């Protein structure tokens, strides 16, 4: 650690005004403050309350919370590949994991290079400090797409999302919509056949570096929600598999257990709001129960929560501190409506098997309105109290 600090101090003059690498100042600044907490203090004039943990450290925590789901997703990619090829007996644990690792790694690299590239360029161009928000988006983006998404699509979608959902609103902390979800929405509406179209997008089909298996062309593997949307009344996978995550789906979303591990970390450190998280689950469960009781959906409330991207969205994206409601009361309504809309889209719209993405984006839009209502309600309440006295 000490030698790294010394290295940063040594190369620092190159990046300052007049240094030969001044054009890469934002790059240096970004990596320096990522590796070490900056030792700047807030001004002595006026009142400043400064949290001990800065946003780069919060982002790192979220990335750590995402790791279990990511690792399991990699393993599941290999598992689904072996399952589709009918070679499950021959496949070893590590063989499946490394296959998945090699399938997912290029997506992570592309998402980070494109996203951070744009962020660093904008920071340098506007002469601002580098923003850290893409640290989390960059890891979430590969986790919410099917494993067969072509890299060039991912690159275009990431660039679109970072520019149009983030930079034009003013960068990190100013965006109205969750950047990772805009990436997915762009892919979803632009290239529907590569995102959900036929049932071949969810399973990697070719060997990578000698690992994995070649899957015959005739196979198809639908997600459980895809099966339901296609008119099935029973699922081909067991409930136990669905909880553990051995089902086809976007890379990071399948395992409830791995997501729960991340959720524990986020809640324990207080990074994510438990109110938002809980109310999403409550909203989804209640709505799912109602539709099930009315006979509109063959899925029980429990299955609605376990399947698809519900858990992933509830834990990692509904709780995004920038785009969610910020008033304490507003969080309840915001979360509840996400759960309600997500299940409603799933049940009532046969065109969209999964509604979590649309639900969160819609509520992102309404979060400022919810906050506004709660703030003005508080104001009028206090004004009344003052007048009555």
């Amino acid at each position, binding site marked *: 650690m000490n030698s790294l600090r010394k290295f940063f101090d040594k190369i620092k003059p190159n990046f300052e005004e007049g240094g030969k690498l001044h054009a890469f100042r934002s790059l240096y600044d970004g990596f320096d403050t990522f590796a070490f907490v900056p030792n700047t203090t807030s001004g002595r004039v006026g009142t400043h309350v400064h949290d001990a943990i800065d946003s780069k450290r919060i982002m790192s925590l979220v990335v750590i919370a995402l790791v279990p789901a990511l690792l399991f997703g990699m393993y599941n990619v290999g598992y689904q590949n072996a399952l589709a090829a009918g070679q499950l007996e021959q496949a070893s644990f590590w063989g499946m994991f490394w296959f998945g690792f090699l399938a997912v790694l290029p997506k992570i690299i592309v998402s980070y290079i494109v996203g951070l590239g744009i962020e660093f360029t904008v920071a340098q161009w506007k002469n601002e400090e580098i923003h850290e928000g893409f640290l989390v988006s960059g890891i979430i983006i590969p986790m919410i797409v099917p494993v067969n998404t072509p890299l060039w699509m991912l690159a275009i979608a990431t660039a679109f999302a970072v520019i149009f959902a983030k930079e034009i609103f003013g960068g990190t902390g100013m965006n109205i919509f969750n950047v990772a979800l805009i990436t997915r929405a762009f892919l979803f509406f632009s*290239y529907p*056949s590569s995102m959900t179209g036929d049932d071949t997008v969810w399973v990697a089909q070719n060997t990578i570096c000698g690992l994995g298996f070649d899957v015959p062309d005739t196979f198809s593997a639908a997600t459980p929600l895809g099966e339901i949307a296609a008119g099935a009344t029973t699922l081909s996978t067991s409930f136990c598999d669905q909880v553990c995550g051995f089902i086809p789906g976007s890379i990071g979303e399948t395992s409830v257990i791995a997501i729960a591990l991340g959720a524990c970390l986020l809640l324990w450190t207080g990074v994510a709001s438990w109110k938002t998280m809980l109310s999403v689950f409550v909203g989804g469960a209640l709505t799912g129960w109602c539709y099930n009781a009315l006979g509109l959906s063959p899925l029980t409330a429990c299955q609605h929560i376990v399947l698809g991207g519900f858990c992933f969205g509830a834990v990692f994206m509904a709780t995004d501190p920038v785009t969610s409601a910020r008033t304490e009361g507003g969080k309840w309504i915001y979360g509840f409506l996400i759960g309600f809309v997500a299940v409603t889209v799933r049940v009532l719209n046969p065109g969209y098997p999964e509604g979590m993405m649309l639900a969160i984006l819609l509520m992102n839009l309404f979060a400022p309105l919810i906050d506004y209502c709660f703030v003005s309600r508080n104001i009028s309440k206090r004004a009344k109290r003052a007048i009555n006295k």
Partner: protein
Amino acid sequence: MSQLFSKANMEALTSPLNLNNPVVVQVLGICSALAVTAQLEPAIVMGLSVTIITAFSNLIISLIRNSIPNRIRIIVQLVVVAALVTIVSQVLKAFAYDVSVQLSVYVGLIITNCILMGRLEAFAMMNKPWPSFLDGIGNGIGYAIILVIVAFFRELLGSGTLFGLQVVPQWCYDHGYVNNGMMTMPAMSLIIVGCVIWAHRAYNKELS
């Protein structure tokens, strides 16, 4: 002759093309810019129709501007515009039936295009016929330019064609290229119009 193309008249013709563009500066006529720009051909026909209608309605209103009672001027303007729109719509149906089917209701909806009423109210009611005519042509072409720019990107990226001809080679499709489906949705044209405005303002600093 020099009177006809005096500086003021030329300004009426050229300022809507750039610094006073009806779409990207005044933000008028956005709805039809979103609706008809999925392909180049209907966009160009739409641009031409609006240019002709704006020019001639400006001319006619300007000719009778002194005899229109102020209180019913909107109705008079609407009658003139509606008559012209009907003529253009019938001509399209007779000579370019395919395009008129593609444009469907949007030809009829030129009546409600804000650019038309805006120019009639703001220019034709208080200027002589010839400048009004030039102003109408300028605004129509200013509108058409933006339509063509938006339609160019939407057709190229959304369908891989230009004027219905395949532009993106088959080689790209064989290697995994896929047309962008979102480009064919109206939502995307709003974003493209936004990009055009962005580029326009970045170029003309005095606007922002």
